[in-house]
């Protein structure tokens, strides 16, 4: 990954400005990872920063970010409705520069939509929204996640060399923040699932004890009775178990010691 890239167009007498912008970008991303309640929120804010950081006077960019896992899109976010519409258009057609960037894991540049012949159907539709050029930069994430940053410019040749370098640089940095956000989300979900499992298991174990006492049978036999009852009545195992307990004790709420 290139270490020296400019966020803004090179300007004489402003040495160090790009470095300061980059520093702010990293801090901003860290804040977002900490403050966002879910990955979608994080992505939306990141897409907005990309659009702001990479836009130039007279070249206002739109940005969309798509995250896929095992080839299924799991989160999409965009800086504005134009980017969202273009991302959706591409997903509905099923081909286009951004999907190609995802599949090939390499950057795709469409300098002039009118002249491009690789995705005729998409290009034709995209042209109607008033954009002239596209840059799709893949984000390298921990497996099995993948992501792509889609940048749309209203002008043809909207991505000169330094613009592309800046986009690649920002994408590389944002990838780490996105990896963190995805990890946190996954751990949070696993924690929630485990907490729910402990609660549900308590209810079911209690009901198993009730069935064992009533039917004078082993634990396994009691379990089989519960499973059969659930499948015959087409009710969830936990609901049948809760019904058994409330039938005896009248309890409807089961306090567990697993609450934090």
């Amino acid at each position: 990954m290139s270490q020296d890239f400019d966020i803004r167009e090179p300007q004489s007498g402003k040495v160090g400005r790009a470095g300061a912008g980059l520093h702010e970008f990293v801090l901003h991303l860290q804040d977002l990872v900490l403050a966002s309640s879910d990955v979608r929120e994080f992505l939306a804010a990141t897409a907005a920063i990309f659009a702001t950081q990479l836009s130039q006077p007279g070249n206002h960019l739109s940005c969309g970010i798509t995250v896929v896992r095992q080839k299924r899109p799991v989160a999409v976010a965009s800086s504005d409705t134009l980017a969202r519409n273009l991302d959706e258009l591409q997903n509905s057609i099923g081909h286009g520069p951004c999907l190609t960037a995802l599949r090939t894991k390499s950057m795709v540049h469409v300098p002039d939509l009118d002249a491009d012949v690789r995705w005729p159907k998409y290009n034709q539709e995209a042209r109607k929204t008033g954009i002239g050029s596209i840059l799709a930069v893949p984000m390298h994430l921990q497996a099995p996640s993948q992501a792509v940053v889609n940048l749309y410019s209203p002008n043809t040749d909207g991505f000169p060399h330094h613009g592309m370098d800046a986009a690649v640089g920002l994408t590389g940095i944002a990838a780490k923040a996105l990896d963190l956000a995805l990890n946190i989300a996954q751990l949070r979900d696993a924690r929630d699932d485990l907490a729910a499992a402990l609660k549900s298991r308590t209810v079911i174990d209690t009901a198993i004890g009730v069935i064992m006492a009533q039917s004078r049978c082993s634990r396994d036999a009691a379990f089989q009775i519960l499973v059969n009852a659930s499948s015959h009545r087409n009710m969830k195992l936990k609901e049948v178990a809760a019904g058994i307990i409330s039938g005896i004790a009248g309890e409807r709420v089961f306090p567990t010691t697993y609450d934090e």
Partner: protein
Amino acid sequence: MMDDGGLGTPQPAFEAAQRKFAAVQFQSGNISLPALWTYYYGIGGNVDQLGVDAYLHELVELAPLQMDLIQTAIKEITADGPGSAHVSGL
């Protein structure tokens, strides 16, 4: 004492079909292995995650009750619709 040896002890052919069915549903149901295992544990399952994985890949046999519980877990998760036992919970 009830004869629990007879309970849930299906024919070998049925067992294989049941596992195949569970494996196919698992793959098409958009459920991750940790999410499936956690749910299965929550309804009283006793086999660890590796054992459930091995069962779904047709490498080991499990007690009939444990197979029923895996089946039940898959059924209940799929009935809740994708996203209930999230692949990633985004």
